[in-house]
């Protein structure tokens, strides 16, 4: 039995297969509509995340399965003090697979150690959010046709943004990738990503603080939100939150085929006037996320019709 804790749990080849399967699902929806008949996914969300939870639930419903679960710790037995280990033992009796979101880092790993069903990490604190990374990769691959030979700009909160860290880790495994890291000084990428990933693998990158200067160099611009919940100091949050606002004027500087991605939700870092630009693909990204999660569920349930027999 296999779990998914980190995007690096899957090899590049396994991820390629998952994305092939996601693409096949996209083009043959009917063929997959009953593949999970009688199966249940438990969405165990100890903190609210409407987007990710709905994506998992939609994925399972699209496959013919059904959904049980809770959407906040207050409505779960955690409010009575039950441990993650006990909850997963109980849920293993009800469901066939589970997706867990937890504010504490490592909680899904604790669950996987006691679980009798596959556990998917649906986000654990500031640590990992592998299905977001797989969604990002699948979106880029689907719309660009490749995950190699790309200049990727990452903009906004590069210090606390776990999606950015995971994406750098994941993309670093592909050939001829370079990064442009755009952030205010206070929100620069942590040293360990710079040393252990970028420098260690000799991946070209530059760190800049002006978005306009680099707009025409990027194939992908990955925007992120400055998250209020990562700051202890409200004043600092307010000072930094409006650092980078992507608008039509900035987009006019970009390549014609650059793509703008965002893990969502956005606050104001992408002006709504950009939404109708064909290069703005963050809502398509949501759709690709459903296909990627459908593929993941099938692989972990060993119901993958494209698996080599």
């Amino acid at each position, binding site marked *: 039995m296999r779990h998914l804790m980190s995007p690096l749990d899957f090899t590049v080849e396994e991820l390629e297969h998952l994305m092939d399967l996601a693409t096949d699902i996209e083009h043959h929806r009917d063929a997959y509509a009953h593949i999970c008949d009688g199966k249940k996914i438990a969405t165990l969300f100890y903190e609210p995340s409407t987007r990710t939870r709905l994506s998992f639930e939609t994925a399972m419903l699209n496959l013919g399965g059904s959904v049980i679960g809770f959407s906040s710790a207050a409505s779960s037995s955690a409010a009575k003090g039950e*441990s993650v280990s006990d909850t997963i033992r109980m849920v293993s009796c009800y469901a066939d697979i589970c997706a867990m979101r937890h504010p*504490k*880092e*490592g*909680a899904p790993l*604790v669950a996987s150690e006691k679980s009798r069903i596959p556990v998917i990490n649906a986000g654990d*604190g*500031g*640590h990992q959010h592998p299905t977001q990374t797989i969604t990002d990769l699948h979106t880029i691959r689907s719309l660009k046709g490749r995950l190699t030979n790309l200049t990727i700009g990452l903009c906004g909160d590069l210090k606390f943004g776990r999606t950015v860290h995971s994406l750098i880790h994941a993309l670093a495994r592909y050939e001829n990738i370079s990064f442009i890291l755009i952030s205010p000084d206070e929100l620069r990428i942590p040293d360990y990503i710079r040393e252990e990933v970028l420098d260690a693998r000799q991946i070209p990158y530059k760190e800049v603080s002006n978005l306009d200067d680099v707009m025409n160099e990027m194939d992908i611009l990955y925007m992120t939100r400055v998250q209020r919940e990562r700051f202890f100091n409200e004043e600092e949050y307010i000072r930094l939150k409006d650092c980078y606002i992507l608008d039509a004027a900035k987009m006019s500087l970009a390549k014609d085929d650059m793509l703008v991605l965002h893990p969502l939700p956005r606050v104001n870092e992408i002006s709504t006037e950009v939404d109708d630009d064909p290069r703005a693909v963050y809502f398509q990204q949501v759709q690709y996320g459903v296909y990627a999660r459908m593929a993941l569920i099938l692989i972990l349930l060993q119901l993958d019709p494209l698996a080599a027999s």
Partner: protein
Amino acid sequence: MGTLNVGKIEEGFVLDHIPAGKSMAIYHDLGLNDFDCTVAIIKNARSNLMGKKDIIKVECPIDEVNLDILGFIDRSITVNVIKDSEIVEKRTLRLPKKISNIIRCKNPRCITSIEQELKQVFLLTDEERAIYRCKYCEEKYDRRS
């Protein structure tokens, strides 16, 4: 200053060059309180090399004690294996791949911070730089804090 004599041991091992003051912690970390054998702890012994050092003498076959953790505590500790009252082997210490319930994760966002019954497990992720990370949250263990 007079010399304190602790008798020779027949069979067992001697942990020498322990930084002064660390012997009691090592006694507990090795689980020596669970053994029925004779254990001598010598604190603040004079050392040409270190000025002061601690020594632990244990009278039981060395294979009965898991010494892996010593490599994490301090690789300069020397392990002398004793048979028939003679040193028959000097063991070199290596960093253990895994450390259980010796050090605690200090990341307040780690699941181990709220579920107290979980084992505190650290894994060696970079042997060259002796970096250990919490198995659950992957936070680096910082010896200074």
